């Protein structure tokens, strides 16, 4: 093993053996999956069956309101309640009902009608929306009768248009928004890793410098070898952590979805919840079940067919390494130029600014993938590792040339930054007690 191999090995093993690494690596996916599951679980929790007491001043509506398993409606007449105050008292004093729904007499006549919903435990916005929908549905049916329009005529009136987005080149149907989301998650991961591990490179350099071990080591290896060994060693730490995260997350979600929440990962179920409001209208315009199925199929299609996984993962690894080498080498130069971490602020800001900018542009790209800013930033090497994957996830066809240009630019730039960083590093690591300025660092570039 060459000397640079020894350095890579040391950088890698000392970091991987650290307790904090183990903790982060195992806790990371558990936390992420835990939050996710927790959020979904909480969302499902509130959907308990509700008993609703309805006081209907029109005496027409309450009989036509749509019943369902979850929403059980009872007319107040059955309880012998004639006015709103009695209803409120009844709700307060009996555990029998969860909600008291009051529909005033004018609710049918006006266009914007106001009813009242009294509760003991605040209902979710879902419940509120559902109730609004079924009241709306009843009013509609009532008016249809008044106007003498048959249900069939009404269905023909009320159409529902969906626009499917189709790529003209590949003739594929795509869910652009969701695909961009997947790309953004990739970009976000690259952003996070560059940040986390770039800072580690800087800290590692500062540690060696302030420990005063650096002079011993550069008497055995070239400063450039030491710097590259550190950068590459830490890169492997990042890749290791990433791979473990992906595997652990997959294992966790699969186990959980098979055991604890069998329904949760079922696309049809997800679609159903998403379609709930439409179901509630109750007029059988379109069989709701098939619509749910369609959304489910779309989701599966997105995951299994539309995302070019091979290309995405290949490019992810490339942009991860390229972006990391670019920023990591700059961070190493900063670490070499300062004496302690407190002095790094002025140098770190100009380095992190383009990184954060890239993140913002990537977020923008979800909404507007073809804006000029997004196209430019997917080429500029300082932002391309984060932005390019969002574009690729939306369809790589026609992007080949742009992808290659951006890759070539990235490689050329990180070779450039590594060279510059190597020069600054070489001089900086042996400078003590001297506050480096940009002018000073520029001089170091030209040292023999």
């Amino acid at each position, binding site marked *: 093993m060459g000397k640079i191999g020894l350095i890579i090995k040391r950088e890698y093993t000392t970091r991987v053996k650290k307790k904090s690494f183990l903790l982060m690596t195992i806790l990371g996916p558990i936390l992420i999956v835990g939050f996710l599951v927790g959020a979904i679980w909480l969302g499902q929790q509130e959907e308990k069956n509700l008993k609703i007491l309805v006081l209907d001043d029109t005496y027409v509506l309450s009989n036509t309101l749509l019943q369902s398993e979850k929403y059980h409606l009872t007319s107040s007449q059955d309880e012998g309640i004639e006015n709103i105050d009695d209803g409120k008292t009844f709700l307060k004093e009996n555990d029998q009902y969860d909600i008291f729904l009051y529909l005033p007499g004018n609710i049918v006549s006006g266009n914007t009608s106001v009813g009242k919903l009294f509760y003991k435990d605040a209902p979710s916005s879902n419940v509120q929306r559902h109730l609004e929908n079924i009241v709306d549905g009843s009013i509609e049916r009532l008016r249809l009768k008044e106007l003498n329009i048959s249900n069939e005529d009404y269905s023909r009136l009320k159409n529902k248009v969906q626009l499917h987005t189709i790529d003209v080149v590949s003739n594929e149907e795509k869910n652009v928004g969701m695909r961009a989301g997947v790309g953004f998650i990739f970009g976000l991961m690259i952003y996070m890793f560059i940040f986390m591990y770039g800072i580690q490179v800087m800290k590692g350099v500062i540690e060696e410098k302030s*420990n*005063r071990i650096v*002079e*011993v080591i550069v008497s*055995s290896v070239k400063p450039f070898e030491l710097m590259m060994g550190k950068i590459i060693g830490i890169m492997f730490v990042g890749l290791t952590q990433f791979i473990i995260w992906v595997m652990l997350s997959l294992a966790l979600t699969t186990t959980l979805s098979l055991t604890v929440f069998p329904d949760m990962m079922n696309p049809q179920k997800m679609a159903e919840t998403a379609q709930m409001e439409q179901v509630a209208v109750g007029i059988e315009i379109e069989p709701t079940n098939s619509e749910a199925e369609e959304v489910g199929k779309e989701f599966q299609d997105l995951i299994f067919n539309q995302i070019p996984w091979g290309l995405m993962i290949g490019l992810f690894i490339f942009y991860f390494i390229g972006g990391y080498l670019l920023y990591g080498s700059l961070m190493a130069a900063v670490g070499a130029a300062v004496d302690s971490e407190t002095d790094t602020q002025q140098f770190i800001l100009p380095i992190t600014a383009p990184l954060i900018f890239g993140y913002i542009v990537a977020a923008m790209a979800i909404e507007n993938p073809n804006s000029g800013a997004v196209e430019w930033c997917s080429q500029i090497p300082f932002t391309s590792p984060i932005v390019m994957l969002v574009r690729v996830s939306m369809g790589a066809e026609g992007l080949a040339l742009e992808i290659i240009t951006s890759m070539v630019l990235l490689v050329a730039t990180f070779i450039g930054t590594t060279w510059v960083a190597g020069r600054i590093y070489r001089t900086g690591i*042996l400078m003590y007690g001297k506050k480096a300025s940009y002018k000073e660092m520029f*001089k170091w570039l030209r040292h*023999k």
Partner: protein
Amino acid sequence: MTNETPIFEAKNIVKEYSGHRALDNVSIKVPKQSIFGLLGPNGAGKTSLIRIINQITAPDSGEILIDGKPLQREHVSQIGYLPEERGLYKKMKIGEQAIYLAQLKGMPKKQAKQELMLWFKKFEIDTWWSKKVEELSKGMAQKIQFITTVIHRPKLLILDEPFSGFDPINTNLVKEEIMKLRDEGATIILSTHNMGSVEEICDNIALINNSKKILGGKVNDVKEQFSEEKYIIEFKGTGVAFANAIWGGWEMVNNEQLGKNHAKATIKLTGGTQLNDFLKGIINAVEIESVNKVIPSMNEIFIRAVENESNSKKEVTNENTNQDG
């Protein structure tokens, strides 16, 4: 020894750092199996030279020869370097760290471990193997650093202030080890401000001041060069009798009455007076007990050489400013 190729030779080394000349035409020869004192005030250029030998930086011009061959990357494994600014990885275990440093010098892992064990025993620190550096005192860490410098049996050892941070007992231990290493064939370049140790263990020295070598050679020759015609004479008799015995050709530097009829005088001969002639002159006045030549200490030589240099430089700069004015 003089005919042998020196293990290390620097020829006309020049090094500049953005306008500041750190080494100005410095040439040094270090004979094989000797201890060479590289002396000079702070900021004189010693560290610059040492870094060039270790190929941390390159000279602007000049040549370095190791065993007669131009300095190359491969020489790294034949050189051991203990920098003045030295440290260790705080969180790493001592044994692992020592093996790592030995491996960087090109030693195989197994061999490194075996030999490190021997050294750890010798320095009575074998129980520290699995400790972390942050648990050690400064002196303890120094021992580890010394071991890691010599572990790969370098032909040329460069030690920059090796005794700083050691108590007298450990200073002696290290001193003995340095001399033992020389006896076993190594050559040592020792950079230090501790003139006592220079006198004790160095065979040759070079004194660098203001980027230039101002003095060099065997320790005894240098001392000879700096010795003035100064003698300490002990005698029976009085100082007055002594002083009046001979006129001219000498100066009384110091006169000390040790007892009623017993004194010690430090004299300096001037104007080419021979010691024998002087003694002939006083031999009738007092009874001579002993005569010793005053040999300057390295400390004195260091201070005198550096002060002379800076004085002459000051004169030059003064002249320059006068001309400018």
